């Protein structure tokens, strides 16, 4: 059985959060965030790279968050947050986590169960 067969309500709720997460990130930043998550969680080859200082700063946070969040430096996060003067950096972190969680579930449920879907 798949994860969705076993946990239909939770998977539907995660789908809804995922849809909102990809909706609130601008397309260029979304593409880079999804790529970093795919590379570091699934071992996929990189498909794109950050093209602006803002994207590079966000990737520095996302990469460390994915590898070892406890090792994140205050300065690395603050540098990325400074590119979002309206305060929406918290949204970026939250959206990236939702995408990360769904990606980890897809990989782990494929190994342990009949997949995600």
């Amino acid at each position, binding site marked *: 059985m798949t994860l969705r067969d*076993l946990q239909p309500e939770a998977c539907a709720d995660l789908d809804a959060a995922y849809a909102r997460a990809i909706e609130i990130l601008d397309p260029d930043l979304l593409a880079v965030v999804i790529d970093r998550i795919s590379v570091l969680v699934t071992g996929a080859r990189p498909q794109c790279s950050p093209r602006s200082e803002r994207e590079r700063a966000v990737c520095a946070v996302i990469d460390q968050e994915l590898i070892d969040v406890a090792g994140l430096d205050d300065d690395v996060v603050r540098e990325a947050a400074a590119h979002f003067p309206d305060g929406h950096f918290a949204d970026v972190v939250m959206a990236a986590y939702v995408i990360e969680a769904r990606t980890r579930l897809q990989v782990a449920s494929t190994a342990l169960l009949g997949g995600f879907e």
Partner: protein
Amino acid sequence: MSRATRVPIGDDGRPVGRDAELVRLLATYQDTVMRSTYVDPVTTELVRLRCARQHDCRICQSLRLVDARDDGATDDVTDQIDHYETSGLSERHKVALRLVDAVIWRPSDMTDELVNEAHEHFTDAELSELLLDITKWSTQKIHVTLGTDGTDRVPLDEHGIALLAFDESGAARVRHV
């Protein structure tokens, strides 16, 4: 570790600029996950604390799940999490903690041996809940990243501990020991 708040905080004590709809949807997901009851409370607590310690979430490390304490997850048991492979924990609990490590570090590297162990000790329903639990507890990564995982608003006792429970809706309730 010492960790400063890294983003602007509003009057409500939370980061400013958060998308209310995403906050609501992520909370809904977490509540739904917490309503699943295939896994026993002690295993759930060991998994929760492993996530908390690996991610160094200060709030989560300060909490103890009430149901699990009632069922035997004493400090003597939870103190074994950090060195679980050489601990006296049961094989079922060791397998659960190996699953945590695999999922939060590199799930694509999960070995066939671990997959076989998982099916030996857990049903598919239990495994589905363990996977969801790991993602629920790991939402702490958001707070650790933003530096908002401080315990200043947690009602800690003299040992730095507070109690955690979940109501019928799956919502968390934290109280003094």
